């Protein structure tokens, strides 16, 4: 910190200092700018060639859901260092909570805005329920238990068809309304703005958490659980909180998705969703809030807009036989492995995480030359 202050170069660094001392305000400003600019950028080539503006805005709103999911998973994976492979389960729980709260199927009609909190709360409770028995064990068990949980939740929604209408899903979920204004299917703008506001609130909250005592405890556990425990961090409750807060973020995303599509069904929440979000977090840079958000946004847009268009674009060329959508998960898998081997800190790394992930190499370098040879792959 002091090193940076010493060579303060005009605008950029002053902005950076201002943004780190007024983080909430700068987050709001950044998000407002991004929210305003994205629809404008979409009207210019080459983006306007892909889709008309309203379709883009709709995609942006959908991308926002994944940004939110990635931000939440980042708490669990990036900040606390716990691998959650069933994150979609909490997303599903949030979505079904809203479907029960506001649909002809249940007969309830609770307001969307209240249900956002309810969905987040219910998802967090399930996070606690799942985390309490497993977080006391070693981290790898959590990975497999969450993997199982992520499969079980959609299976339960599928099989308990008396309560969930099984494969058919619950349709006709009510769209939100605000101060008498009714959201419409045909108009993506209100959803887009709502999502932007939710993300802004989430970003501010996560920044504040990250810089709080709890956030430091998360990072301490991530770096060395034993050392954290011996310094008085209650590792179980700290990890549980990370897990529950991550789950509640997914719950928010679930409520939003249920209201936007006006439909929930078990197959929206399969393992591929958990895997996609994990890939977003890893590619974006575990632990870096802006990096993860940007990573999620870019990957979602590539996946849903560009890959789809690429198929149409390449029709008639020798590459036309290849369905790029079919290979997207192969690409994710390759990307995950390549990132872990070559650049584990992600595309937009958090400085602290990078040092941690390269600690082994740094420790090896000053010692014998044999140590350097072993890490020759890097």
């Amino acid at each position: 910190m002091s090193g940076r202050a010493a060579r303060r170069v005009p605008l950029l660094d002053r902005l950076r200092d201002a943004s780190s001392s007024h983080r909430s305000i700068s987050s709001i400003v950044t998000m407002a700018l991004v929210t305003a600019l994205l629809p404008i950028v979409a009207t210019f080539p080459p983006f306007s060639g892909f889709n008309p503006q309203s379709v883009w805005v709709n995609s942006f709103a959908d991308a926002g859901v994944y940004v939110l999911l990635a931000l939440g998973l980042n708490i669990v994976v990036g900040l606390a260092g716990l691998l959650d492979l069933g994150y979609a389960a909490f997303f599903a729980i949030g979505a079904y909570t809203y479907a029960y709260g506001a649909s002809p199927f249940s007969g309830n009609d609770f307001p969307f805005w209240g249900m956002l909190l309810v969905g987040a709360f219910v998802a967090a409770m399930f996070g606690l329920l799942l985390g309490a028995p497993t977080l006391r064990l070693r981290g790898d068990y959590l990975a497999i238990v969450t993997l199982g949980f992520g499969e079980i939740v959609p299976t339960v929604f599928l099989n308990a068809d008396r309560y969930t209408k099984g494969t058919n899903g619950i349709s006709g979920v009510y769209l939100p309304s605000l101060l008498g204004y009714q959201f419409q299917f045909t108009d993506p703008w209100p959803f887009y703005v709502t999502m932007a506001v939710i993300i802004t609130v989430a970003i501010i909250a996560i920044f504040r958490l990250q810089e709080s005592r709890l956030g430091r405890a998360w990072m301490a556990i991530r770096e060395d659980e034993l050392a954290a425990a011996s310094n008085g961090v209650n590792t179980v409750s700290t990890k549980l909180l990370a897990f529950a807060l991550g789950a509640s973020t997914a719950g928010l995303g679930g409520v939003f998705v249920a209201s936007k599509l006006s439909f929930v069904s078990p197959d929206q929440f399969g393992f591929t969703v958990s895997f996609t979000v994990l890939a977003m977090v890893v590619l974006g840079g575990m632990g870096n809030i802006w990096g993860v958000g940007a990573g999620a946004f870019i990957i979602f847009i590539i996946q849903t807009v560009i890959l789809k268009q690429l198929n149409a674009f390449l029709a008639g060329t020798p590459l036309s036989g290849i369905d790029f959508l079919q290979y997207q998960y192969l690409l994710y898998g390759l990307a995950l492995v390549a990132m872990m081997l070559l650049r584990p800190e992600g595309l937009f790394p958090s400085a602290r995480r990078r040092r941690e992930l390269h600690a082994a190499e740094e420790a090896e370098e000053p010692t014998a030359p044999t140590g350097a040879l072993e890490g020759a792959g890097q």
Partner: protein
Amino acid sequence: MQMQRSIQLPARLEGGPYRLIGAIAVSLVVAYVLVGPQQFSNFLTIGAIYALIALGYTMVYGIIELINFAHGDIFGLGAFVALWLLTMGGFNGAINNPVELAVVLVALFLLTMGIMGLVGVAIERFAYRPLRNAPRLAPLITAIGVSFILENIMQAFFGPSPVNSPQIFTLNARFDIAGASIGYLNVFIVLVAVALMIGLQLFVGRTRLGRAMRSTAQDREAAELMGVNIDQTIAITFFIGSALAGAGGIVWALYFGYAVFNQGFYAGLFAFTAAVLGGIGNTTGAALGGFFIGFVYVAAAQFGYSRWFEVFIFGILVLVLVFRPTGLLGQQLGERA
């Protein structure tokens, strides 16, 4: 000889392996009474498949403490390799000549297990070895990435729908016993699985390489100081584990007659539960856990809850982790650490 024997026995069993054998016998009788003779043979067959997969999980975890998420997909790939070899060999129906059948089966098992073993070694070499000293999260994420790569390669080659496998066993080659009609295929599968498990136990317990594996699991650095080639030992562990999963894949293709690109995902989850149930790192435990999972599968189908099977397995996994995280037999490899 005496010395080796006392090293080989897990501490928990030192009181006498007879208690374990007795417990197995009692559970078999209970299982027989619960599901009847016909389903009993199915349970042993399906249990054998899960046991073969669980062995690889438990060996890899025992030696490098990594949950190898790709292991289930190695099983899935093994089924496809077996199916592909049979198709390439021009087999499309039952082989009635017993000598020919035996030759084909031996060749099938040797080739598939060898190929899958090499695939496992390659995965270890390129995806896991560079991360051996990295933070724990890194190899876990890599493993899940490898799992997805394998599934998508299978999907790219064989398509998203189930692919039928040539049935080289005559399905009506059955015999009647105790009111049940049992296929020779079932008997063959259980015998092969048990033979492979006994072979594994002998290998780990009696050979020089097996001792290298156990010492590496116990304390990698000390083993290295004693002259154990760590990289080679870990590679051999992956080879054996993947070959066993490959054997599971062959058995699956022979018994169920199809393979689908994502079958390894669930099978891996169930086999992992089996490994945890038996005490992860413990090969005997993993085998028994596999048979237990097979029993749950058959019993769930018997009593009309087959679509809740996954939920039961997951419930078992969570219950074991809560109440007895070391598994039923304790941690054989880890306990020595």
